[in-house]
């Protein structure tokens, strides 16, 4: 059973709807026993880094998530802020993330250019996957996804980068470190492209 973590931040309704459309069983929960029994976990996220980590702490979920990710090694998918929480630190906050991926989160900075690009990076953009298997199976180079973020992931290990997007430069769109997966875009708001991502995750 796929469990979508409910910690008060993120579009759990849409993720659930889309997984159901993809033919997968899923539930939304923040109950430790349910999370313990999950075969896969999805961590959504809309909001701010520090608030997200403290919400997880308040619900007593940090230790449990570490266990499920690092000991049990179940597939975990972080979405947008959820993916950013898998990194070590973020410029958006002062606290630490889970640190499962050797990466940090930085703010987009275009101020020094002539016609600086707008921040947040908001809209549909192409993603260039680095693997045609796993999460991006069946998705071609013309796949578009919805992005909505002012901060982006910077990986220190190139091998952790699963996909990139272009916005004045090349940025990380998706990460994978073993069982830990993260996408900067919102699959639950990316029509049939997002549907494919979630369906692929369900089949991992």
């Amino acid at each position: 059973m796929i469990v979508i973590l409910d910690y008060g931040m993120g579009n759990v309704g849409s993720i659930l709807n889309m997984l159901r459309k993809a033919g997968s069983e899923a539930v939304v929960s923040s109950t430790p026993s349910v999370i313990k029994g999950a075969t896969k976990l999805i961590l959504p996220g809309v909001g701010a880094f520090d608030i997200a980590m403290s919400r997880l702490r308040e619900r007593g979920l940090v230790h449990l998530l570490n266990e499920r990710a690092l000991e049990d090694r179940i597939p975990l998918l972080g979405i947008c802020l959820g993916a950013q929480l898998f990194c070590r630190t973020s410029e958006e906050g002062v606290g630490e993330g889970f640190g499962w991926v050797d990466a940090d989160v930085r703010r987009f900075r275009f101020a020094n250019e002539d016609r600086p690009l707008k921040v947040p990076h908001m809209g549909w953009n192409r993603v260039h996957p680095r693997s045609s298997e796993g999460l991006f199976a069946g998705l071609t180079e013309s796949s578009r996804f919805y992005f909505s973020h002012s901060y982006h992931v910077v990986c220190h290990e190139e091998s952790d980068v699963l996909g990139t997007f272009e916005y004045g430069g090349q940025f990380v769109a998706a990460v994978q470190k073993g069982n830990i997966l993260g996408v900067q875009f919102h699959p639950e708001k990316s029509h049939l492209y997002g549907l494919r991502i979630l369906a692929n995750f369900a089949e991992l």
Partner: protein
Amino acid sequence: MLIPRVIPCLLLRGRGLVKTTQYSKPVYLGDPMNIVKLFNDKEVDELVLLDIDATREQRGPNFEVLAEIVSESFMPFAYGGGIRTLADVKKLFAMGIEKVILNSYAMENPDFIRVVAEQVGSQSVVVCLEIKRNFFGGWQLTTCGARRGVEGDVVEWAHKFQELGAGELLISSIDRDGMMKGYDLDLLCKVSSAVSVPVVACGGAGSIDDFRRAVEEGGAAAVAAGSLFVFQGPHRAVLITFPERATLEKLFNA
């Protein structure tokens, strides 16, 4: 690179969708569920839904109607109309709405923008500026469905909203609304060059070439339209349409 978003802007009145002309003479279009589903099937980039009576009727969002409408949409959904509390905002996000569009209440209590942005992040907060041309050819910011004027320079207001945490500004021209004669490009240009957040053009689109102009000449990051997507022909028969993806990509030279 990002291709400019093309966004149907839908107006909710009670339980039905309507289309206005210069913010008046609403014409009934149909049931929101059906129309949203049609746009969903056409894979539109994003949807904006504005409840045009909420503030006037002094109430918050109609959550019951919204929940139904949003449950079937797999693209980003932005909602505005009567949002006055953080509790409203949280409830909207929990049901699957991507962004909240703040207007009347935020004009009177600008700090609300900051409070919401701190909670949900700027990328999820849109401030809608409803603007009318004044006697001297300049612009006046209005509120409460264009019934009340707001003192101050429109561009300064836009900048202030950005500073408070708005991640996007929806610039709606009251005079151009429903007229299908083009966007107010001067207004768009003035605002977009003064802020670093995306500006969404609204009011006046009569053809897809207006989209291109709003982006190239107005500096808009995205374009919203109502009449263009819901009416057809000189007699404005109700018909839901949306351009093909290939057409839009060619238009923006992607």
